[in-house]
């Protein structure tokens, strides 16, 4: 998936419009990125990308950009 597709996936996951999300969008600005949203994110990352988040990983995820960076580090983002 390229960055655009990843952003669309994040938007769908949190029930946001892709047009409203940028790398700078913070977690607290996404209504559905709460504890249940985080749980859903963990399950989706696991199922879709084979990524199992640790508690340390979770603490670093504070924005859409952090999430994209995590996927990039795991080699899941194509240019």
């Amino acid at each position, binding site marked *: 998936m390229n960055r655009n597709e990843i952003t669309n996936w994040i938007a769908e996951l949190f029930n946001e419009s892709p047009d409203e999300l940028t790398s700078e969008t913070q977690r607290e600005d996404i209504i559905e990125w709460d504890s*249940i949203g985080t749980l859903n994110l963990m399950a989706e990352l696991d199922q879709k990308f084979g990524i199992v988040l640790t508690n340390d990983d979770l603490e670093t995820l504070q924005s859409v950009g952090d999430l994209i960076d995590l996927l990039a580090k795991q080699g899941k983002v194509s240019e």
Partner: protein
Amino acid sequence: MGFSIIDEIIELEPGRSIRARKTILPDEAYFEDHLPGFPAVPGVLLLEMMNQTAGICLESEDWDRGTPLLSRIESANFRDWVGPASTLDVYAMVELSRQNYAKAVCRVDVGGKRIADSTVLFSFISPSPIKENILKSVYQAFIDKNSSATNSIR
């Protein structure tokens, strides 16, 4: 009305899959007004049957991670009515199972026909504040009939 709504476990592969059974009595209390002149098992009860069945499957696994709690209903479909005196087969397949979360795909069949299905996400609460699992007796009955199974439900 108690809320342990599964009668019997038929098959169980701990942490992976389960088939349970529920018989709907002809005179269930909720038929009085659900629905007037057209008795039908409420969809929320079908959903809860699927949740409880999946929960038993997760708890039967020998993994001390706490009690599974329903956290998200990813999808739920109710495809037909279930009336009085029906026998329901309730299935759950665990798709994903980790320390903090698990996902299960569930369904309810009547006479081999799919009536309802769901995909649900569980989190785990540990230490559990729950004194005793309400489905322990259902699980114990299965264990008693299947001596090869291990008793790991808490």
